[in-house]
């Protein structure tokens, strides 16, 4: 997620003035290098179909719900609570994933130790485990009689049917994004910068805080945002581990089963708006001005 993706329009070079053999897809050579000819046509066609496939369902969803029905849905306590629950749990998950993911990402980025590939494979494991399977596995571990669930129950913490269960389910399926994104951020740092810092008298912690973390911050924050987005949309693991209190996706599923498609659609639109809005805000903050300010604060 590079922060300043140059808009194509601003990349126009000298080539733009040349007479371009326009084809049906209108592939003007912007920035020099967009394909032309039949290859260009096919590329554009396939890309367009894919984009339409993504955008059309969203548009259709919005068109099904009237403003009145949205109002009504927003006034329904169950839907409001579920949406807030989703936002809150996703934010907590993003925080936990970052706090625990950054050290692991740092270790993985250092490389040079045995078993690095194994650890990386473990980190990626949640990406291939079906989410319902993850939910069942977590239930065994965190349920009332589970390895962790039983002792936690004695301490008064219950994962089954609680907000902690929701967070646990979200964390399991989304933590790879936090680790991998931060790792990529750390890996992009020239190792000589850290060596220079050490030679200048900085301890390993000081070097991490003043050099590695500020330079890798973009990756760390991107990871947090991805975890947030992934968590908000999580259904499979959550519905098994913590059916109640309902998160927004679970509530939408309930509505779909109980009241039908139209009722569910209104709730879905609300979740979509909230999720998109928060995601966009966080993404902008993570890649833009906030980041610069944080960098300054660190230096």
């Amino acid at each position, binding site marked *: 997620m590079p922060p300043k993706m140059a808009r194509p329009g601003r990349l126009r070079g000298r080539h733009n003035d040349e007479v371009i053999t326009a084809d049906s897809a209108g592939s003007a050579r912007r920035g020099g290098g967009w394909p032309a000819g039949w290859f260009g046509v096919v590329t554009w066609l396939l890309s367009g179909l894919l984009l339409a496939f993504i955008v059309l369902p969203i548009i259709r969803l919005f068109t099904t719900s009237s403003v009145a029905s949205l109002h009504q849905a927003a006034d329904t306590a169950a839907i409001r609570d579920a949406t807030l629950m989703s936002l809150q749990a996703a934010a907590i998950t993003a925080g936990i994933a970052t706090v625990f993911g950054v050290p692991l990402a740092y270790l993985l980025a250092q490389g040079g130790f045995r078993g690095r590939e194994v650890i990386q494979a473990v980190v990626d494991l949640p990406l291939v485990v079906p989410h319902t399977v993850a939910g069942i596995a977590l239930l065994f571990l965190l349920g009332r009689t589970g390895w962790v669930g039983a002792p936690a129950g004695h301490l008064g913490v219950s994962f089954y049917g609680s907000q902690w269960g929701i967070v646990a389910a979200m964390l399991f399926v989304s933590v790879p994004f936090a680790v991998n994104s931060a790792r990529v951020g750390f890996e992009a740092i*020239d190792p000589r*910068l850290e*060596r220079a810092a*050490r*030679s*200048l*008298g900085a301890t390993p912690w000081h070097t991490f805080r003043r050099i590695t973390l500020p330079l890798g911050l973009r990756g760390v924050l991107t990871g947090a945002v991805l975890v947030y987005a992934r968590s908000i949309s999580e259904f499979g693991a959550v519905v098994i581990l913590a059916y109640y209190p309902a998160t927004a996706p679970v509530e939408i599923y309930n509505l779909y089963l109980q009241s039908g498609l139209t009722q569910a659609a209104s709730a879905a639109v609300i979740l979509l708006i909230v999720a998109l809005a928060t995601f966009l805000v966080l993404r902008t903050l993570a890649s833009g001005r906030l980041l610069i300010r944080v*960098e300054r604060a660190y*230096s």
Partner: protein
Amino acid sequence: MPTADRGLDVSGLTARAGSFTLGPVNLHIPPDRVLVVLGPSGAGKTMLLETIAGLRPQNGGQINLAGADITCLPPERRRIGLVFQDAALFPHLTVQQNVEFGPRATGAAATTASVDLLHQLGVGHLAPRAPRSLSGGERQRIALARALAIQPALLLLDEPLSALDQPTREDLRTLLRRLLAELKIPTAYVTHDRDEALSIGDDLAVIVRGQLRQTGPAATVSAQPADPDVARLLGWSELGYGTAANDTIRIGNLALRVPAITGPVQAFYRPEDIQFGPPGHDEPVSASFMARVEQIVHTRPLARITLGTNPPITALMLHRDIGQLQLTIGEPTPASLREGSLRIFQAGEIRLPTQPLSMQKASRRLPPADPTNSPSQLVNRPTGTETSVTNPPGGSYRLVAGPRPASSASGKGIESTAKFSRKNSLGL
């Protein structure tokens, strides 16, 4: 340790990276001298610096700096200033913050000193700028200021000029030479560039494939390389292999008058020492021959002249001399190899002679009986590899890897060289 010595002492240092082994390396850098570590790419030069700086694990050996054993100290406590090839400035900090990083990390607050340093290096006006907006030369100056800001006990420069364009490189080289002479900080300067090595270094340490091949004052090492690899690195050209018999080495059609060697040898010559025209009577020569000029390449500062000899010889000479001598392509010209421009190595066997750096001080610096100084390493150091073979005064060659003492190259040999060479001239 002798407390008076503020230099760097490295003894028996070894390090490993995969299948690559560095060392054992023995080095000494006195406070007022610059040691240039010269070697081809991949020889382990950077690894040596990083091991000394504590940024890589070392397998064995001891490092003493300014009278203290720093072998086991983490890098941040070694007080070693590092400058990397590409400066490695912290991109998220301003120039001034970069320079202040060291003092601030160690708890000092030396803001004015940092700016002073920048001014001294001619980049004071750049203090508020971001590194990414600077030129390569400016970055290197700032990297240098940053390394100096911690008042290092040792300065390690890893090819600091290699990434720069030629004019900038020459500017900065001049600045560095002046600065290093003023600072009196022991300095190790890594490069693969012969010119740079000879213009910056007081002493040379030549490293090839992880092994330290030769150390000594720069002039000595470059005039008397210890083995073929060192010779090549220092600009000697290979003449080829031959067999020495009856005070003569025959290589191709060439006969070199070199007394008192027998057996297979490998010969090198200094391309800028080829002389054209009939040799003067007072100048002892090792070989003279007729050579056809095949090609004149007008490189600068010296032109390259390819001679159609067997083995082929390339001479380097001043452009104005080409005009004076009226060298023309295709014409045979008398040429000769002067004494001292030939270097003969016994083939098949190479010893590693090491001259103690800055010889006059070296004896004081190795305390024979100091229990704190890991005596086993000093005692067990094989004396054979330490043998320093000095050139006999006026000797035309020196047998480095020969079975007999090199000092037998005497004045007698020089006389016969001069006489013999005339008879052995070759027409080609």
